[in-house]
């Protein structure tokens, strides 16, 4: 099943590789992956949508949490959350379709980011299904070119709401010291 994981990790070379490596070594295919710096520039937030056997989900999450660079991995698949994606779409439009395209774009809440004699470049955000529809509709007007960002997600559970990046206190032992 498709699982949405939200991962907070150190913003370091190789950190991304560890996360993706964990998935690829099990033969899982990543559907989408986004990653960007958090408020704390030493940390990155990653959202991954990946196809995982249902019974292996908890184990996968534990393995993610075991990565030294990973501060926290959460499974957002269930429970209240918001998942959004961005699509950039260029459509080549014949003169007579231009108004219709703009109307349609408005219905989907898309914005025009470029307009030329060739056609439009549009920007839309939403959940994946809505964007699928948007793309399908636009394809009826002419040739299209599509780039999608992949999902970014945030949990709406109260306990997971943290305004600054959560840094879990080491349970048990304090940070190590060198003799």
């Amino acid at each position, binding site marked *: 099943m498709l699982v949405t994981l939200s991962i907070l*990790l*150190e913003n370091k*070379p*190789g950190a991304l*590789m*560890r996360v993706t*490596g964990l998935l690829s*070594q099990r033969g899982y295919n990543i559907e989408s992956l986004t990653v960007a710096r958090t408020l704390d520039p030493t940390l990155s937030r990653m959202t991954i949508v990946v196809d995982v056997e249902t019974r292996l989900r*908890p*184990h996968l999450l*534990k*393995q993610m*949490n*075991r*990565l*030294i*660079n*990973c*501060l926290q991995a959460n499974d957002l698949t269930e429970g209240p959350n918001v998942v959004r994606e961005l699509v950039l779409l260029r459509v080549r439009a014949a003169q007579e379709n231009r108004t219709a395209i703009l109307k349609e774009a408005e219905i989907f809440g898309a914005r025009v980011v470029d307009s030329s004699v060739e056609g439009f470049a549009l920007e839309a955000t939403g959940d994946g299904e809505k964007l699928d529809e948007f793309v399908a509709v636009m394809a009826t007007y002419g040739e299209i070119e599509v780039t999608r960002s992949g999902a970014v997600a945030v949990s709406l559970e109260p306990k997971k709401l943290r305004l600054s990046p959560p*840094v*879990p206190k*080491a*349970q*048990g*032992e304090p*940070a*190590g*010291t*060198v*003799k």
Partner: protein
Amino acid sequence: MSNLMNGARILLECLVRENVDCIFGYPGGVTLPLYDVLYDHPIRHVLVRHEENAAFAASGYAHATGKAGVCCATSGPGATNLTTGLVDAMMDSIPVVALTGQVTSKLIGTDAFQEADTFGITRSCTKHNFLVKDINELAQTIHEAFYIATTGRPGPVLVDITKDVLQGQAHYTPVHEIHLPGYKLVTEGHAGQIRRAAQMMWEARRPYVYAGGGIIAAGASGELQDLVETLDAPTVCTLMGLGGLPSSHPNFVSMPGMHGSYAANMGMYECDLLIALGVRFDDRVTGRLAAFAPHAKVIHVDIDPAEIGKNRAVDLPIVGDVKKVLTKLNRHLKEFAPTMQEERAADRAEWWQTVRNWKEEHPLQPVFSATEIKPQHLMYEIDRISGGKAIVASDVGQHQMWAAQFIRFDEPRLWVNSGGLGSMGYGLPSAMGAQMACPDKTVFAIVGDGGFQMALPELATLVNYGLNVKVIIMNNGYLGMVRQWQELFYNNRKSAVELSAFPNIEHLGAAYGIKSRIVHTPAELQAGLKEAMEENGPYLMDVRVSQYENVYPMVPAGGAINEMVLAPPQPVAVPK
């Protein structure tokens, strides 16, 4: 206070602060600055003859001491040769720190001479790895590497260091703090869970302790002994856990699993409470999971949360350091001990009677013959000499299983072997590492004729450093374990398992200057071993054992552990 020094010297300063006394390695182009500093440094460098063996030796050192073993290799082929040893340490949770040279920062990614993506290649071979391109990060990284390798669930950590870092100059400031925000260590164990565990243990009528490598890693032998004595529970130690409870302890049953004893496996099957301590429910132990401990509730103590419930659903998980958890658990158990011991006395007597009956029905007993040396006989003789005190490093295969079955270990850290990965060629180099760590102990390397030939170049290392390792080759002329499976599951079609053209060991020994002997008959065996023990230095012994002996009992892969094959199906094999 700080002073200017080059990266190589900073590296060694850090190693000294980590109490490293010995490095197993092989030099090369980009590690030249390091070797220049090592030239007159008190840290001892052991020049192995192949980098893979450096990693195995470091693992042997770590097995014997619990300290991190350190190995070192150059960039490219040096680093790639380490990988098997790193995966091996990963599978068996052995603390190893690997230092590799990397080409100069500016050359990375240009296909420079001896360049390999060590950082990428070893990502999945290590608990963690680092690439150091900035000399100012070197000291911090080295200490972090040791910290990660030796804490929590131990494992291998690799630090890839570019040549410009090794030869660059920087002010060295000793590091006092580790900063690893993502490294979550849970060591104490949940107090409520521990209390509940104690309760479950007293409630159980047929408790059974399943102790693994975690006991050794945590140094929890004493606590384990305390627990099993309080509970009076039968106890099995896995392949990695042998020595966790002394083999001569009355509560010790034996090793469970594919080649475990009948009693050990039947106990697993019949118990009503399985107390799993520092184990990972490996498929070689459990057999078919559905038929593993089917009547039992399971308490699982492990420091790695990812192990909990991985293979077997757990009724009571406790994440924590098994030593700390057992210390608290023992306290709780003892609160009720006098009354509960009395209350459970009848149950225990019955349970022990059952276990003893299993032991008597199908005991693990060495096989002897007047005309040929049975492999079990060989292990029996080694056991007699060892008396539970010698370090035994084993290779992988039939001899490993017989050694595990018949050699007693009365202390932890005596049994050195490659359990999880099953890397042939491990026995000899790991024995070297153990011998370097414990020069006063008797060290046996028990190897097959296959694995021995994989580690052959290290004979030179034995001679170089006068390492007092008794290399006992259990020579049956076959890759015995593979042949056993071909016999049993592939219509006895022996494909590519015959090892003809084994070198004459006496000539080979003479060529290296190692005292050596071929032993053909049971009558010579004791004398041969006596001679080996009297030799103050390495000794090679080629023991010609009966060729077609197979390891039993055996739980066929995917079989249920209570359905062991106890003896060879007849006929065993058709000699040519």
